[in-house]
């Protein structure tokens, strides 16, 4: 059976990451399982843990009073859920719900922030992995906003 370090090393988010950095991350990590319908995080709650998805699918939703929630993105294997832990005031800005049985690694955000502050090399390595993902998502959101399949 794989231990946490092996699981982290094999996750797409950490592909090619220096082993000593993976070891640092292991100290902040735990294995998690979410059944279909279970929420990983809720809008407004403290962003104290984010998730590396190992298997399954997670829907990111915005709650609309009196209506069904609107799903604006889904994430799957190899992707990360949550970036609000990076930016004060560390509060989630959407809900994340497991669409199907989902296994993930939870990363304690406060623990990771402390380690990033203490070791700037580690912090920079982590940011180099997060920023492209944030950029890609911003770009994808722009395309969604264009509503390219709407009436010309």
């Amino acid at each position, binding site marked *: 059976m794989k231990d946490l370090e092996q699981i982290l090393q094999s996750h797409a988010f950490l592909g090619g990451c220096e082993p000593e950095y993976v070891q640092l991350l292991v100290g902040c990590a735990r294995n998690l399982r979410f059944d279909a319908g279970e929420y990983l995080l809720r809008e407004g709650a403290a962003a104290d843990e984010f998730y590396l998805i190992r298997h399954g*699918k997670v*829907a*990111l*939703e915005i709650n609309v009073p009196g209506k*069904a*929630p*609107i*799903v*604006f*993105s*889904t994430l*799957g*294997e*190899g992707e990360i859920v949550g970036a609000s832990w990076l930016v004060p005031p560390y509060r989630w800005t959407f809900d994340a*719900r497991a*669409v*199907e049985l989902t296994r993930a690694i939870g990363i304690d955000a406060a623990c990771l922030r402390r380690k990033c502050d203490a070791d700037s090399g580690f912090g920079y390595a982590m940011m180099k992995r997060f920023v492209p993902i944030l950029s*890609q998502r911003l770009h*994808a959101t722009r*395309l*969604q906003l*264009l*509503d*390219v*399949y*709407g*009436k*010309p």
Partner: protein
Amino acid sequence: MTVAVADPMLPQRYRVTHAQRLLDDTVSLRLTPQDGELPSWQPGQFNMLYAFGVGESAISISGADDNGFEHTVRAVGAVSRAIAALQVGDSIGLRGPFGSAWPVTAAEGADVVFVAGGLGLAPLRPAIEAVLQQRERYGRVVLRVGARRPQDLLFPEALERWRLARDVDIDVSVDHADTQWRGHVGVVTTLIAGARFDPHESIAMVCGPDVMMRFCARSLHDEGVADDRIYLSMERNMKCAIGLCGHCQFGPSFICKDGPVMRYDTIADRLNVREL
């Protein structure tokens, strides 16, 4: 001996033999020639459909059998509204087929990646069917489909049939959904990175709105697919369909004659020119 050559500007009379409403504003029409045989055609080509008294519009062929062409039409302007309103038994003028085709034969031996957005699945459908009919001649077959909402997906029955077909990797993403939708939500480009295909041994065929194709081509490029192995189906204001009138000029090319299917490496620079 004098051989009569059909005038490419003269519409032939066709009859609507089947009409099916697919979406609120989109129909599929089966058009059967009233005189003579169905002309030969290839996946990716288009016909000029003439709604009598209204005008002509270039519409891709979304299928065909021995008896007729199938065209999938979205009612967005005067001509397409008139075409979409036709009933079984009505007549329509048709010129064609015109234009270039999807590289279905050239893709033999390679992995094939289809990416369709919205109505773009219609022009790709004959190419998908052709590949699946001779599935053993191709490597991996990947289909990625993007739509606005789950209820806007074209050809759900065909998608299900293809999904059940041997060894075809199909994934669908919509831009907006409620919690009942169990598929992906997000732009279709995000489904390209996770697809399993050999980028160095793949041919990609992409059809959809211009913006979607541009970003899909970039995603495929980023995955390692060479630009000369990516094909897009371009759409411009086609009028004569034989490269004479210039309405569909796209830099040095005419979409009607040199396209609609064009290789990405030959047009990538032009896709960023706003005036084109």
